[in-house]
């Protein structure tokens, strides 16, 4: 574990800024959904910010990331602009996918982000395939494959563990255990031990990490990524985290108490923890923190503005991108 002193102050400030960006962005998404500007299924990442921010800091720009429908944050930390993500959510031509995919399906290959997958578990073998390509090309890249603790029961996950282990693929399997799969508390649908141990029988070592502490996430991830990048084969990381909001915007959240949520917010909030450390370590004063908050708010406001101004896709887009015109390939 990292001793506070050893942590690079610039890094910590960056963590703070990124986590705040994700949270403010998602809060704005929630508002806009309420205003009817965003439709369909929409899953917010609020509460889990430390996981993606800490892990992303442990990989390189040319590495790859893939996740589920709960994908806004993963796209943002990879470097997709808030405007391009938000306009995708409003279904406008300025969206990263011209508004054709929406909230669950953000992709940006330019930033090594492979989506954005709506079918639970599907990104796991696909992500291993991205890692397969990295190895096939003899690169030293790695792929972070994110999935939920509910998805961790999917059979394709174990088929993938077996192949990834057999072929020593450079992928990190990251279970974001936010304690709920839709309305189902993890204990109700998962038998046996901790999820991080479910790779052992396939020869995949696993670790459990406090996913609410971005520095812990980052330190643990650096070690894991180094091992995987070095050809050590896949590793399974279980990030213990928590989702503050409903599963999606249409979830009334009757399956847990407000106090349960309050307790986590008060005792473990990833952003509060870092804010406190920044002050306590004298890295940033209130003025500096206010400045970051203001910047982030502005960024998000601009994104929201852009996402509403951007025109709907051209009607001609209905029939494009069904197939790649031969030759383009």
């Amino acid at each position, binding site marked *: 574990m990292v001793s506070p002193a050893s942590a690079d102050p610039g890094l910590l400030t960056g963590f703070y800024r990124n986590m705040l960006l994700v949270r403010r962005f998602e809060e704005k998404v929630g508002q806009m959904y309420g205003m009817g500007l965003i*439709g*369909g*299924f929409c899953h917010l990442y609020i509460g889990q910010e430390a996981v993606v921010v800490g892990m992303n800091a442990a990989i390189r720009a040319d590495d790859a990331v893939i996740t589920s429908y709960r994908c806004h944050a993963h796209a943002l930390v990879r470097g997709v602009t808030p405007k391009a993500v938000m306009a995708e959510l409003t*279904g*406008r031509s300025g969206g990263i996918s*011209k*508004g*054709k*995919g*929406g*909230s*669950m*399906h953000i992709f940006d290959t330019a930033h090594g982000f492979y989506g954005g*997958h*709506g*079918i*639970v*578990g599907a990104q796991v073998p696909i992500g291993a395939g991205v890692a397969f390509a990295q190895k096939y090309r003899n690169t030293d890249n790695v792929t972070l494959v994110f999935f939920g603790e*509910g*998805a961790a*029961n*999917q*059979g394709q996950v174990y088929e993938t563990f077996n192949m990834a282990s057999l072929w020593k693929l450079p992928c990190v399997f990251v279970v974001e255990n936010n304690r709920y*799969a*839709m*309305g*189902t508390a993890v204990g*109700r*649908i*998962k038998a046996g031990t901790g999820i991080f141990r479910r790779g052992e029988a396939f020869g995949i070592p696993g670790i459990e990490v406090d996913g609410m502490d971005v520095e812990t996430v980052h330190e643990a991830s650096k070690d894991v990524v180094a091992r995987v990048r070095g050809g050590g084969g896949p590793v399974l990381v279980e990030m213990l985290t928590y989702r503050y909001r409903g599963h999606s915007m249409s979830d009334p959240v*009757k*399956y847990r108490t407000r106090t349960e949520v309050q307790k986590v917010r008060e005792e473990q909030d990833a952003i509060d923890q870092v804010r406190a450390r920044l002050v306590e370590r004298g890295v940033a004063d209130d003025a500096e923190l206010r400045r970051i908050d203001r910047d982030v708010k502005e960024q998000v406001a601009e994104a929201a503005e852009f996402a509403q101004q951007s025109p*709907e*896709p051209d*009607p001609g*887009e*209905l*029939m494009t991108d*069904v197939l790649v015109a031969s030759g383009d390939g």
Partner: protein
Amino acid sequence: MAAVTVRQALRDAMAEEMRADERVFLIGEEVAEYQGAYKVSQGLLEEFGTARIIDTPITEHGFAGLAIGAAMAGLRPITEFMTFNFALQAMDQIINSAAKTLYMSGGQVSCPIVFRGPNGAAARVAAQHSQDLASWFAHVPGLKVVAPFSAGDAKGLLKSAIRDPNPVIFLENEILYGATSDVPDGDFALPLGEAGVERSGGDVTVVAYSIMVAKALEAASSLAREGIEADVINLRTIRPLDTRTILESVSRTGRLVIVEEGWSFAGIGAEVAAAVIAEGFDLLDAPPRRVSAADAPLPYAANLEAMALPRPDDIAAAVRDVCYTGL
């Protein structure tokens, strides 16, 4: 008669059949404590308990196979797919185990199971959550395929599906869950394999299923203002297909339009058109027209999604076409 929502009608059908036959149980994701992702199983856990209302992990392949095994062992599972898109993960068990085992076992092992859940597009849920699987399932012998439109359909057909000794694919529609219509009181069951005539016109036959029946009826009333009176047939059961009712109507109208929410290539429209032509070629005064989804994955953008799915205007235009009034 009482006006209830489709959601309520489905719930009542399950509750009544579970009271009548303790071999019947409900299994799926979020069906118990959450009361159903779309609240279709509201109150069932409270009445029937955890032994008969069973929450599963998110493992469609596994729980579909498990339910099939339970059916082969003599129980009567109702298996809910949160949406039928997720049934793609269970497709091998549905086709190779549920549909084929009766035949392979020479009639020894039957599989009395219902697979139910919302099918097709909802609102803005994009390509992976919007597929209409009707023609896929209907293609396969050994399955029955049902697609209710009204609350009466929902209750009457689901009760028959649960009682049926065969695997039945029961395709609901999320947008229709909240729609209200009259349902006869008491133990009301509708026979599988019989279409309903929702409107009698005589100038043209419009065949549709599920939510497309509503679009067809909308189109029919606007066409009526132009003096075109349409028969609107609600298929209710897609397999076995009630060609008799369709042909009877076509024999009077000579004109046929088939409406489906799904893709046209080898779709239900293709089958209905081919079947009518095979048996009623001489009845037709014009080539049948198919109205289907745009031949693309469903887009998220509001304007594109609206264009992608069949609208009453598209249906009306097709009708004018077959009536030549379009010329």
